[in-house]
């Protein structure tokens, strides 16, 4: 029983980790570009946007999964969009009431979570065919992956563009560090849209490079294992061929004998 549970936990963990690393929505799936580029001018905005999207993603994945057998196939996309829009409106109202500073900073991109392709893509590709628990975990993983990507881009753009580190305010509480006289030397272009495109492009190239390298290393490590597997496969193929040859021979023998019998009968 415990063993089963443990195995289960590992599988569930994998669903979450998959969203954060292996198929990170921003760096790997290239989904949700608009909010990624627009609100990542500072790490704090990135965190806020990421968490708002995560909440919507988890809730919509859960509801879509619960209703997956009720929603007719033909109207599923409008139904998904309606579910997502409802949760976005709820998050919008909550932020406006409790964190107005963040509500102002996110501006038009907050209602635009509705058309964030990550959320619709996960509803369509995962939640509509999986169980409720798994769907919630998938939403959580994807949401955290999105948040991680936004914060990473946000940190870089904020550091280069404004010379600060995690500046933000939650109501009355202000936090963040101005790094010495670095703000005087900040490269303003990184806070502009051009800097957003550039940062994401170079980050993506770096990640491609690293994962290519890792894949090459893995290939090298598994080469010996691969050889063993290859020889095993070869063995199986050979056995199979021998068997088939033997069968063929048997069939042709039978045919020959049948023909021979027929000829005998004719005589």
């Amino acid at each position: 029983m415990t063993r089963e549970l443990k195995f289960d936990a590992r599988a569930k963990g994998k669903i979450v980790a998959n969203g954060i690393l292996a198929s990170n929505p921003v760096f790997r799936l290239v989904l949700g570009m608009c909010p990624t580029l627009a609100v990542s001018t500072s790490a704090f905005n990135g965190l806020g946007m990421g968490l708002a999207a995560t909440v919507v993603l988890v809730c919509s994945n859960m509801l879509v999964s619960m209703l997956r057998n009720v929603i007719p196939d033909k109207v599923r996309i409008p139904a998904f969009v309606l579910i997502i829009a409802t949760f976005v409106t709820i998050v919008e109202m909550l932020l406006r009431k409790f964190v107005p500073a963040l509500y102002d900073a996110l501006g038009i991109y907050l209602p635009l979570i509705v058309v964030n392709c990550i959320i619709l893509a996960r509803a369509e590709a995962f939640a509509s065919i999986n169980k409720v628990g798994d769907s919630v975990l998938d939403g959580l993983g994807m949401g955290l992956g999105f948040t991680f990507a936004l914060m990473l881009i946000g940190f870089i753009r904020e550091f280069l563009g404004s010379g600060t580190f995690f500046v933000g305010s939650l109501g009355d509480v202000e936090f963040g560090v101005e790094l010495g006289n670095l703000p005087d030397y900040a490269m303003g272009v990184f806070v502009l849209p051009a800097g957003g495109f550039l940062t994401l492009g170079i980050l993506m190239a770096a990640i491609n490079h690293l994962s290519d390298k890792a894949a090459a290393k893995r290939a090298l490590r598994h080469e010996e294992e691969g050889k063993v597997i290859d020889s095993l496969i070869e063995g199986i193929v050979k056995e199979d061929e021998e068997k088939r040859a033997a069968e063929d021979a048997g069939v042709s023998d039978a045919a020959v004998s049948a023909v021979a019998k027929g000829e005998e009968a004719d005589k």
Partner: protein
Amino acid sequence: MTYFLLIIGAVFVNNFVLCQFLGCCPFLGVSKKTDTALGMGLAVIFVMGIASIFTWLVQKLLVAAGIEYLQTIAFILVIAALVQLVEMILKKFMPSLYSALGVYLPLITTNCAVLGVAILNVQSYGVAAAESLLLSFLNGVFSGVGFTIAILLLAGIRERMDVESIPKPFRGFPITLVTASIMSLAFTAFSGMI
């Protein structure tokens, strides 16, 4: 003069893709060839123009009923229904236009540029646009034109890049993003013009 400034503003100064990050997904995804980029651009102009009219009317209804907080839900429903309707009408009455735009129409429902222009039209951004239906419509159409210009330029550059040798990690999306960055830098020069 108001109209002229609005048009220049929508096409260049506040270019949807390069200055406001709206509609980035199709901008990066459907810009491999100039013909498909043009098809997508025309479909966006078409839908954005019509959506601007209808969402403007819906906003008046919402304000009259005192339920502005349902704006997001109402707008996305109107846009989704509109795209479906436009698709059906085109299929029936203008099959040639339908075959040209057909594949791109469903994609537009989830194009944030359309919902974006609808929300911007009724918000502070276009104070004039919030007042007048005609200005809303023009803003929608010419924001679409700005989108089309941007996606066409990018598609042209990407077609040229296909024959260049690009460092392996940069192939695909990364080099496209860097290209978009340089284009965006060029469009930044328009800021402050109005």
